[in-house]
């Protein structure tokens, strides 16, 4: 097994830097939408870094990668779609 210690350390440093940037963005006086987009972009980047490098998803087969990455966004989209459907629900 290869020695990935330096990669793991670099990843931890990047995660810490992104966390620091997130905090700075939360105090920035920019538009609310811009702030939310930036914060979510930082969060998703950090989550992908954890999954890709620490959880070793990059070494998994293509089939397992699909199994991992499809259900959660699909579930979230389905939930949001159902929420938008609530006003049209049938009242018995």
């Amino acid at each position: 097994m290869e020695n990935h210690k330096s990669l793991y350390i670099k990843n931890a440093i990047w995660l810490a830097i992104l966390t620091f940037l997130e905090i700075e963005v939360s105090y920035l006086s920019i538009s609310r939408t811009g702030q939310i987009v930036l914060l979510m972009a930082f969060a998703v980047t950090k989550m992908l870094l954890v999954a890709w490098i620490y959880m070793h998803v990059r070494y998994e087969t293509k089939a397992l990668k699909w199994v991992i990455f499809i259900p959660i966004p699909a579930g979230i989209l389905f939930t949001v779609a159902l929420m938008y459907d609530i006003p049209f629900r049938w009242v018995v």
Partner: protein
Amino acid sequence: MNQNINQTIPINDPFGKASNGKLGMWLLIIVDGLSFAGLLIAGASLRASASSWPAAGEILDIPLTAFNTFLLICTSFTMVMALSSIQKGDQGGLKKYLAYTMAGGLLFLGIQAWEYYHFIHNGFLINSSMYASIFYVTTGFHGLHVLSGVIYIGCILWAASKGRYSANDWDHVEILGLFWHFVDLVWILVFTIIYLI
């Protein structure tokens, strides 16, 4: 019987060399991820319909929680180092890094308990407001995951102290690592949505 439990899916399978245990943990992670998504979406929906909402840092202590976030990142590093150590047959490294991870998890829980204590002492209770309910339910649910992870690490550490794992047998450590990294991964989202947005 025990051989069946540890059976590995053949190499030509779509999931490669992933063991049944590892696939089971991925399944748990996906289901658990959807549970967290449900909580966060419900929170966002309630927030969208609320007339007023506290600004980031108005009630919650962002610097303290940022430190806790940094702590969880460090424990993800120590956990991956524990796996890396045993893959090289380093039993001492495995035990050392697992102990560091466990200590980090306990410190995270201690800081969260301290934060809760001060909030409760100042009258910020779970039934104080919709904001408080969302905060306690989401962070509490995550805290229970950290607690489960710490107990799980304790079990694997105990087995490691008996010399259970080696360079050819580290599947349980990898599965534990997946769970612990998931706890870190979810916290990244919880911290952003509950504390910063």
